């Protein structure tokens, strides 16, 4: 119960980072934090259902739910792809305008460089 409140707090911290920080790299940090918190939430909820790891050797019973773990594998790999693409776009913006500050970039794009 308290773990879920802490995970909600982590999600809100990531969201606050995206909305209120002006540096582009800080916004990408916020994306990563949100991704991390949702993955931890799924694995935590799935592990409430049992007590041993889902490797069915001889005599293992009462395993945890393996379906959320299989889904989160895909989610983690896609998360790193999202970060890499976002960083490539941020790099291009830096090379074109000279700054990472989102308000400066907006002003420069609006005034035609």
């Amino acid at each position, binding site marked *: *119960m308290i773990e*879920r*409140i802490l*995970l*909600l707090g982590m*999600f*809100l911290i990531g*969201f*606050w980072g995206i*909305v*209120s920080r002006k540096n582009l790299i800080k916004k990408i940090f916020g994306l990563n934090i949100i991704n991390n918190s949702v993955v931890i*939430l799924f694995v935590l*909820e*799935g592990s*409430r*259902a*049992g007590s041993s*790891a*889902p*490797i*069915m*050797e001889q005599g293992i*019973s009462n*395993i*945890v*739910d*393996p*379906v959320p*773990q*299989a*889904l989160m*594998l*895909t989610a*983690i*790999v*896609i998360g*790193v*792809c*999202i970060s*890499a*693409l976002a*960083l*490539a*776009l941020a*790099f*291009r913006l*830096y*090379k*074109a*305008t*000279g*700054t990472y500050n989102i308000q400066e970039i907006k002003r*420069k794009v609006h005034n035609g*460089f």
Partner: protein
Amino acid sequence: MKQKAINVLTIISLASVTLVLLPLFLENSPWPLSARNYLELHGVGDSGAINLVSAIYLGFRVFDTLGETIVLLTAVSGTIGVLTRAGAVLAEGYDTSGTPALTEQEKKVIMDDHTFTLAGEKRRSHALRTHLLEVVTGVLGPVVLLFGFYLMLYGHLSPGGGFQGGVVTASGIIFLALGNRIGAKNPLIRASVLDRIEAAAFLLLILASLSGILMGRGFFGNPLQDVTAIPAGYIILLNGIIGLKVGAGIGFLCIAMVGREIS
């Protein structure tokens, strides 16, 4: 004044997100156990793999894996396109007088796509450059690659599998590239080789998925289910293909982002 408006908007958006997510994070209904019960009894028999997570993402939910490989392909090609050619074409007409111009020394840095080390040891702070990095990572690189291949091929018997082995292989490729000495030509860290490995693995995945149709088991069906005594051979093949794809794709991404000076 504008800053105050932004602060108020931030607080309002945070409050509304909390309001939407609070019932989701706080609900207390019991986790439905029907999937776990079914998998505990029939998972090993249906697919032949002892590791149930491998059985799920290669047997029961294999369309998720197919979608993930497509997303990986798109993300890697998009990143490379934005970083190198397409990005440079887009930035042609923009006035870049605001950015600090690249000096001649910086332009000579890493034009070679083999190595991470700088050509001729011309570096701003070459007092910090020791041989520790090259020696340690150059020796550890093949060991990490071997571990990655072990995880890929034994994924159905112990923790491991396609994704896990693939990302560890990508780390091994980064180690090899960091430990590369100037002048040594290692084909595994060249961008063209990794590119072709990823494309070939994707093609093999499509072929392996269609092979089930020939034996009458449907798309992504296991063709070895009734024929041989080891139905897990299909799982091993798929794990290896996915491991190669993910490893080569993410390795290519890292080498493109770190090893080449973007002009």
